[in-house]
């Protein structure tokens, strides 16, 4: 399908695809097995200018938006959904600054992220606050010219590897979610350390860690937006980055699909390639239908967001649910097409199924996304 990408988007997509095929695919299995963080790939992405596709030109980026970010994530994820997350997780950590940062904050942090010199991360989730993000316990107390942070964030992508962290904490507990504020915390700030590295089912080349704040003092000017805006910063950021998760899912699905099709032409049973069996053909047709439908929704959502739309929670949630459910289904069926070989670690397919699962969980589980969609539908109905 031709999605009428601009010349620049086409270039971005092709270059990301080249990096995926030539540089990521050959190492994906090894990085998965060893849980290695892809520093070399970050360097390649940096040299190719892709780290800054979604950052404005005045801060050293290419001036694109969510669409450009998603194109890169999709292509990289075709080869490895874990390695692509170093890039996508940085997007998640950077959007709060792009959306809510003041000029000084943008000037200070965005150029190094655009050039790939620094990675970013986003810390919202805590042990007792997952879907119910309003339950966070981490506190930030203003003391003179500094905020003092205390608490522990859990399962933070790029934890320990990123240099810039956007973190949500309570500045006024009595106000509930309206008492949250968002802050920029730099790595190596005294009182800021990293807890255990998680041993995960999939996306194992991505680093998921705790952020531990123990009387961590940060300058007052690291507050993003205003006190009390933390929850809004988080929600607006996630609305904008969910298409990135959708693109990750889409890439994983596409990669699995390509692998399965290739295999079906080579594998001979009963004297013929298995691709000649209608049962296999229909599975492949279904995969292709679901992938293309997801892609259409994801791309259109990206374009809608980048056009300057104000409210796109529903669309963004739809894209994420659709693409991630597709990724789970397609990767499962891709293994089915490949039979026992698909189940073995020698082939990169079982990994794709493990990688796909997370896309139904993080940045809001698909159940929560459906809640969001339904709530928006009810609001729309009430407005009529």
């Amino acid at each position, binding site marked *: 399908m031709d999605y009428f990408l601009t010349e*620049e988007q086409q270039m*971005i997509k092709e*270059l990301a695809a*080249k990096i995926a095929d030539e540089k990521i695919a050959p190492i994906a299995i090894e990085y998965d097995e060893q849980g290695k963080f892809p520093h070399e790939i970050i360097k*390649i992405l940096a*040299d*190719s*200018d892709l780290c800054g596709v979604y950052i404005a030109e005045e801060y050293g980026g*290419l001036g694109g938006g969510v669409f450009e970010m998603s194109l890169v994530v999709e292509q990289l994820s075709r080869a490895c959904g874990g390695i692509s997350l170093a890039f996508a997780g940085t997007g998640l950590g950077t959007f709060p600054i792009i959306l809510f940062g003041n000029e000084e904050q943008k000037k200070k942090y965005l150029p190094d992220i655009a050039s790939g010199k620094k990675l970013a991360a986003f810390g919202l989730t805590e042990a007792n606050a997952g879907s119910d993000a309003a339950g966070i316990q981490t506190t930030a107390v203003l003391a003179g010219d500094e905020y003092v942070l205390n608490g522990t964030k859990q399962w933070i992508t790029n934890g320990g590897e990123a240099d810039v962290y956007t973190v949500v904490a309570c500045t006024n507990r009595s106000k509930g979610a309206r008492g949250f504020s968002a802050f920029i915390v730099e790595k190596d700030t005294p009182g800021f350390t990293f807890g255990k590295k998680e041993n995960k089912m999939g996306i194992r080349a991505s680093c998921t860690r705790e952020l531990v704040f123990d009387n961590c003092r940060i300058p007052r000017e690291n507050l993003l937006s205003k006190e009390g805006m933390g929850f809004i910063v988080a929600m607006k950021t996630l609305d904008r980055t969910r298409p990135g998760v959708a693109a990750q899912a889409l890439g994983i699905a596409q990669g699995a699909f390509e692998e399965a099709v290739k295999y079906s032409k080579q594998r001979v049973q009963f004297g013929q390639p298995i691709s000649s069996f209608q049962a296999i053909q229909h599975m492949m047709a279904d995969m292709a239908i679901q992938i293309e439908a997801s892609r259409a929704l994801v791309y259109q959502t990206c374009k809608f967001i980048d056009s300057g739309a104000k409210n796109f929670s529903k669309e963004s949630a739809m894209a994420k649910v659709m693409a991630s459910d597709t990724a789970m289904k397609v990767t499962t069926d891709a293994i089915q097409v490949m039979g026992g070989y698909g189940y073995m670690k020698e082939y990169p397919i079982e990994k794709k199924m493990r990688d796909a699962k997370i896309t139904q969980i993080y940045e809001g589980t698909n159940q929560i996304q459906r809640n969001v969609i339904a709530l928006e539908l009810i609001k729309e109905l009430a407005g009529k």
Partner: protein
Amino acid sequence: MNIVVCIKQVPATTEVKMNKETNTIIREGVESIINPFDMYAVEESLRIREKLGGKVTVISMGPQAVCDSLKETIGLGADDTVLLSDRAFAGADSLATSYTLSMGIKKIGDFDLIICGKQATDGDTAQVGPSLAEKLGIPHTTYVRRIEEIKDGYIRCQRLTEDGYEVVEMPLPAMITVVKEINEPRLPSIKGMMRAKKAVVNIWSADDINADKNLCGLKGSPTQVVKTFVPVHDVQSEMIEGTSEEQAQKLADKLLNMQFMTCK
């Protein structure tokens, strides 16, 4: 340090198809790429420039379509590109090609180093680089796998040989051809690709470079292709059965029979 890199556009396939009547390579319908060995030459020039400053100019001889390959090198970081293109250049062998390139490089003028790939994957002669250096009257060395030192007027490099390497020192300007062990070529950058889109390739004709047309193209090519043919792979195989011992005995008998070996 001003560096000139010579590149050639070649068919992307390793299975070159020939036109039996004209004895030339069929280029239609085959995707064109930069000769893979030349990518190492481009990469090395960029690395030298990154260290020492200066300018990288990439030159090629061929039809207009070669502009795409030259622009690709701008995407990688080359500063300037030159295409030598003229009807008079058509049908050139390695002698005529190196003459034409030498005239083009004379027009570029100020250079310290010329880098070529060790050979092109279509013709496989490995002659153009050295021949070009002779025409320019500068020293050269081939199969460079590492540049140990390079500075104003001086280069020391390791030249790959069959059983090791030689260390070669030369004054500059000089010409080297490089092998794939020398580096790992980079991928382009988006900003580079956008620069490439807008870039204008300098296109020079025979007159622009004061070339003697009798020394260019088919006219200047003493090489005559008498006949080309695709080697026939006519392999007959026979499976030898039996225990390992029996198999070995049967194989030995056969080899003796065929007089591939003798029994002492």
